[in-house]
């Protein structure tokens, strides 16, 4: 594929790996967090960590929007989905995230009309095709997907589609990063900034990371060369004693972000005072809800939801795993109460989460170290 294969060139990858090896100080250990689930996926898909020296460790961050949805929110969604006459729509990867009584796929098996959509506009189309049914869209995602939800809501309002509503679970990227950085036991040396989120918010919001916390940030694209180059740029900053926000993904991310997208978000959404993140607890001003002008499209208000908080089990230590303080197997419930089949914390929910990856491949990874 043109414009794709160029960013997957193995030879260039080896060259970058050589530069990385030349940049690191032998004997020093580096922990770099990739904030975004998309980066985690690339690292996993292309085996990028294989190309890194043993003393450069990648830590998976909190940026997988489906994994961070807490059980109580899934339960609320299932309560809506099982109301008579409701068509419940959500993205595919949300369907397998467990609540306290199973997943949306389980609810579907019990008779709920749960449908996978690829865009919120698909959900709106379903609403127009089924005027006698209530169609609910379970909106998730960071600033990447929030604009398309906002535009869909604007259109629904303009066209007066009365049977469409939305459960808003949109979250924002800066507050969880700040929460991680505030932690006294943080052991991260730098951050690979989220490329897709940054196409919307720009590079500016990440300035606090070098300014207030002294850690470099490089906003990166999602092809393997993008990720490797971002790692190289972070290590270069550390070697040079610099600490700033750099933009590796300039072909897509403008410094100011996408002002039109930000405008429509500001019109449709407002900040929630606080929101619960699976594994991370409550983080203030970390999520969006519909603004008062759109209250009648808010499924939580239209139907009412149980809103019961299902606490993460006390022993779950996702927060510590995310901060790089402990390794997955050091968590008290890892491999016993918390497994990929019965996941408790965010790190086990997604197959690419740190714990799920270790559960499935830890034995192999260790053999690789020994080799």
């Amino acid at each position, binding site marked *: 594929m043109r414009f794709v294969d160029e960013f997957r060139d193995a030879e260039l990858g080896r060259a970058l790996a050589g530069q990385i090896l030349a940049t690191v100080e032998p004997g020093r250990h580096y922990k770099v967090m990739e904030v975004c689930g998309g980066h985690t996926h690339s690292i996993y*898909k*292309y*085996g*990028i960590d294989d190309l890194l020296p043993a003393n450069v*460790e990648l830590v998976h961050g909190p940026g997988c929007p489906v994994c961070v949805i807490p059980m109580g929110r899934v339960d609320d969604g299932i309560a809506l989905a099982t109301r008579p006459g409701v068509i419940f729509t959500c*993205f*595919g990867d949300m369907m397998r995230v467990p609540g306290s009584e199973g997943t949306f796929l389980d609810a579907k098996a019990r008779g709920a009309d749960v449908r996978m959509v690829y865009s919120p506009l*698909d959900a709106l189309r379903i609403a127009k095709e089924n005027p006698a049914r209530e169609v609910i869209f379970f909106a998730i995602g960071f600033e990447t997907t929030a604009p398309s939800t906002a535009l869909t809501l604007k259109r629904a309002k303009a066209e007066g589609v009365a049977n469409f509503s939305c459960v808003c679970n949109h979250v924002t990227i800066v507050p969880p990063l700040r929460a991680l950085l505030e932690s006294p036991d943080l052991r991260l040396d730098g951050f690979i900034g989220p490329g897709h989120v940054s196409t919307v918010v720009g590079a500016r919001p990440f300035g606090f990371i070098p300014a207030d916390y002294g850690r470099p940030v490089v906003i990166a694209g999602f092809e393997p060369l993008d990720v490797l180059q971002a790692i190289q740029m972070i290590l270069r900053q550390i070697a040079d004693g610099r600490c700033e926000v750099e933009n590796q993904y300039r072909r897509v991310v403008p410094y100011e972000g996408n002002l039109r997208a930000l405008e429509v978000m500001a019109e449709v959404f407002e900040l929630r005072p606080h929101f619960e993140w699976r594994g991370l607890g409550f983080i203030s001003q970390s999520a969006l809800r519909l603004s008062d002008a759109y209250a009648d499209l808010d499924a939580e208000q239209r139907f009412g939801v149980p809103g019961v908080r299902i606490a993460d089990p006390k022993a779950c230590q996702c927060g510590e795993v995310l901060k790089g303080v402990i390794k997955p*197997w050091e968590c008290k419930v890892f491999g016993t109460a918390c497994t990929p089949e019965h996941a408790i914390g965010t790190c086990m929910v997604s197959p690419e989460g740190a714990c799920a990856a270790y559960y499935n491949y830890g034995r192999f990874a260790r053999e690789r170290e020994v080799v």
Partner: protein
Amino acid sequence: MSAPDAVTGREQRILDIIETARSKRPRFKDAQITMAHGAGGKATQTLIEGLLVPAFGSSTLASLGDAGVVTIDGAALALTTDSFVVKPIRFPGGSIGELAVNGTVNDLAVSGARPVAMSLSLVLEEGLAAQELAAEVEAIAGAARTAGIEVISGDTKVVERGRCDSMYVSTTGLGQLDPRAALSPQGLRPGDRILVSGPVGNHGTAIMLARGELGLEAEVSSDTRSLWPAVDALLAAAGADLHCMRDATRGGVASVLNELARASGVAVVVREADVPLDPAVAGAAELLGIDPMYIANEGKLVAFVAPETAGTALAALRAVPGCEQASEIGEVKTEPPGMVLVETGFGGRRVMDQLVGDPLPRIC
């Protein structure tokens, strides 16, 4: 990783717990059937190995081949059965009727059996247009002629509108075991080369596109075809050096490799760059965030051949019409047993695990 001291006693204990849990026979504990049980991944495996196989106590069934072999008065016969519930029933490159014949033929073929006869059971939905039914009957007849299998028995049922999607087709296939075949899911040996008979992921992609939910348009056709000619060529070229074959249907090539790595207790290493892929399939899979190795095929086999015969076998395979793009995609190793590893085109490695259920498009 921090240092060799990472390998502590506690970590080893945790790894042992996981290993024990993994090696246990799966138990079927789910409260209800979900779509994941039909997707060919871990949930399907739990259903089959946890509920069905123990219930019937057949060692032939327990070997989990694509067909079971029964010997009657010295004649070895292969028996297989399958159901077809595809939606829509017609799609670019084929239809449910062709699929039913070829799917049955292929389960026999990859078991090393020459297809001989089949039964056909039709479950029809009230209101199905007679013309549509006639077209499928014609498709079945045509595919059976091409594949050299005779439809010798059948049944029809009609259910109320809404109780099935247009039509469901069930088949049973009977084949005669080829004397050249020495195949077994336990037959993989370190050093074996892995061959696929052509580009992967076409059928599943064609179906996804034909459902029209994606708003994508691309020229992708199902690959439904009889694999007997390919099997015949491989048996002639490799004989007993052909250790195992599988028809890479639901769950795709990745699921087949995982099943066989487990069954034989070997490691399977795939070179991703060598896996043949149509550009349109690669593009659609890229957009959806789905790995083509997990997408269903309906006319692709995966074969394991001893290294000294692999070149001859590949040449023989490529000479079969429809298999011109057959390729060697990897090799069997010893460590780590039961796992499938991928050498990525970018130069890294990863584990290619079994899926739990259907591959779901990702947003993040």
